[in-house]
């Protein structure tokens, strides 16, 4: 029996409700965005009592389907003021799914100060005081909580760090990886601050005694997961010792640098002279030198066959941090002008410890450097500034609230954001397709909201030319397909394989049918994705967003970006055509 767990932080009660009929077949992003759309007043203050935080594992999360352990987290974003869905790979959502819990809805707000911990298991859900864990670094909190609740084989943990307790708009929601590290984040959009505003420090999920997830059509499920597994195992990007497994996502540093699209020193240039020193190859070689072994990457969550998560090791061979993703590597590296992997690793570790989104935090430091607070490239100073955030000093409070707030505080006009969210690691003046995605995304500047989808599969005909502004349809279909994948519980990286291998995409749909008993076809992918986007766009409309918010910042139209020396030149009405053809 599938249920929703509703946690009221005003009364500090946790109650189970049956899954509403209207939400049948919804999970992951489809469900979190539905609940936020239906229950959260769009004009509410994100840190007030009317906002909610919704967690939902995807449709196939918790089953034997490969690379499907994503947990979707939704709410109204304190960073953008619009709807937010951010997802992470972790065993936490699998345990929730196995307990038959399709969503946790956290609502209300305590009148008294303090923090609480929610424990969920087969017996139910209980809240207990958690003030003892407040103010501590997450690398202290997680081991202590694992020890208290029976170890990482038994439980997984969701928590906020100091940034969330301080209700900073750059605060993410942390989950542990398979080794128990506090390192997997639903990072973007400040949902950690919303949990902080509700006094919810941590959610510990124990699925001991839970039953296997029931399958409505086991044959369809098995056929689907085999087709998907074959595609992932065969494709050059996703196969064992393929690009992601060997070099991690940070392989993109050198590739974007060659393309002239690696945003450097707060989006002043498209190439970074230190790129080779911080790229995936340098991480692989540095680890080999320091540990004496060739370290291939590991799975961030149970059941992942892609295994793209890396570690970085100190000169003495001991682990420094996990994981230096491309976006984090870029944010503290090229965007801050830092070419030292040990400094980047420390900044990454501090974000994991203080509960911060690495993209927003690195982007904020870059804006602050542009404003004269520190010098680009001075990694030691950047580390000191990150501690300011963790300590909650007045300067830290500014930086912890993201790039837009920091740009205002330091009088910087060059703030690369959309809807208040700092841009990730792809320069829109060099890669115009991603610029369209940044502009119209419901999430603010977000590379994952339309990162990949096979135009062929979605029926876009003709030669693909995303630099051509007439391809608004392409940008739209990208986002619809991503809305579907974020609903399944699969990692977006399966897209690399299933776009090239059609049977893999069919398998993804068949698996969902196997779990739900539906008869979806490829046509339902766009239908469901469209429904997700429509819910999110309607929420944003009611929150006060208009077409004028679907724009890139002015400086990108007037400052040309080396080495291509191009500006952002996509007409506004072309952007508007993405969702209003």
């Amino acid at each position, binding site marked *: 029996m599938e249920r929703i767990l509703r946690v009221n932080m005003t009364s500090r009660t946790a109650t189970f409700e049956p899954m509403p009929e209207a939400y049948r077949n919804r999970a992951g992003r489809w469900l979190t965005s539905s609940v936020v759309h239906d229950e959260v007043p769009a004009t509410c203050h994100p840190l007030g009592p009317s906002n909610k935080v919704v967690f939902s594992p995807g449709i196939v999360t918790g089953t034997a389907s490969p690379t499907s352990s994503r947990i979707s987290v939704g709410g109204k974003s304190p960073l953008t003021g619009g709807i937010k869905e951010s997802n992470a790979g972790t065993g936490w959502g699998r345990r929730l799914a196995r307990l038959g819990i399709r969503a946790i809805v956290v609502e209300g707000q305590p009148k008294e100060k303090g923090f609480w911990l929610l424990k969920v298991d087969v017996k139910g859900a209980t809240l207990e005081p958690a003030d003892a864990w407040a103010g501590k670094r997450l690398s202290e909190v997680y081991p202590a909580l694992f020890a208290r609740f029976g170890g990482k084989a038994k439980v997984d943990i969701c928590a906020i760090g100091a940034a969330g307790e301080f209700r900073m708009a750059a605060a993410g929601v942390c989950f542990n990886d398979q080794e128990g590290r506090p390192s997997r984040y639903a990072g973007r959009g400040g949902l950690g601050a919303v949990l902080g505003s509700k006094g919810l420090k941590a959610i510990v999920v124990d699925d001991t005694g839970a039953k296997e997830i029931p399958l409505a059509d086991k044959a369809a499920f098995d056929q689907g997961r085999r087709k998907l597994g074959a595609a992932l195992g065969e494709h*050059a*990007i996703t196969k064992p*010792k*393929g*690009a*992601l497994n*060997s*070099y991690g*996502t940070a*392989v*993109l540093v*050198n*590739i*974007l640098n*060659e*393309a*002239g*699209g690696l945003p450097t020193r707060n989006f002043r240039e*498209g*190439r970074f002279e230190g790129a*080779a*020193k911080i*790229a995936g*190859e*340098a991480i*692989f*070689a*540095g680890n080999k030198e320091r540990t004496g072994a060739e370290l291939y990457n590991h799975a961030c969550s149970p059941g992942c066959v892609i295994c793209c998560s890396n570690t970085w090791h100190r000169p003495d061979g001991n682990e420094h941090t996990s994981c230096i993703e491309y976006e984090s590597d870029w944010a503290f590296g090229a965007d801050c002008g830092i070419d030292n992997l040990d400094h980047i690793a420390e900044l990454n570790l501090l974000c994991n410890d203080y509960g911060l989104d690495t993209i927003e935090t690195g982007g904020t430091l870059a804006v602050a450097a542009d404003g004269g607070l520190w010098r680009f490239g001075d990694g030691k100073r950047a580390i000191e500034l990150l501690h300011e955030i963790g300590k909650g000093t007045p300067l830290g409070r500014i930086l912890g609230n993201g790039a837009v707030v920091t740009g205002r505080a330091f009088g910087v006009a060059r703030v690369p954001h959309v809807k208040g969210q700092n841009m990730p690691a792809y320069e829109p003046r*060099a*890669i*115009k*397709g*991603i610029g369209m995605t940044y502009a119209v995304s419901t999430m603010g500047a977000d590379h994952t909201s339309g*990162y*990949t989808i*096979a*135009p062929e599969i979605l029926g876009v005909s003709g*030669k*693909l*030319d*995303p*630099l051509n502004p007439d391809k608004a349809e*392409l940008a739209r279909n990208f986002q619809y397909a991503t809305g579907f994948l974020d609903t399944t519980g699969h990692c977006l990286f399966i897209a*690399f394989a299933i776009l090239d291998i059609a049977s893999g995409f069919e398998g993804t749909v068949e698996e969902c049918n196997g779990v739900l008993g539906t008869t979806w076809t490829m046509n339902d992918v766009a239908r469901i994705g469209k429904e997700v986007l429509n819910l999110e766009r309607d929420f944003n409309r009611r929150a006060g967003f208009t077409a004028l918010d679907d724009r890139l910042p002015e400086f990108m139209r007037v400052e040309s970006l080396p*080495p*291509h020396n191009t500006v952002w030149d996509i007409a506004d009405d072309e952007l508007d055509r993405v969702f209003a053809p």
Partner: protein
Amino acid sequence: MIDVHLYGKLRRFASNGSPDSDSVVSMPHREGDTVGSVVARLGIPEADLGANLFVDGHYADRRTPVADGARLGLFPDDMQLLYKWYFRPKEEGS
């Protein structure tokens, strides 16, 4: 002259094959050069080459013309992670 920036296992074709610095081969330009002809002169096996190929920062393929003074960026078959649909080969026009 042409500067060819090599990555991953292709770095072995440069005198500096270090994975954490730039591995660049400078070679004379020849009339009619394409990515394919440059790759052949370097002795890079076809099978080692991936789809992430760049000429002066533009996504390219083996038939893309290479002008004197160009910068090539070549990534091997096991190191292609760029979302290819965001780009189009340069030879298909502006």
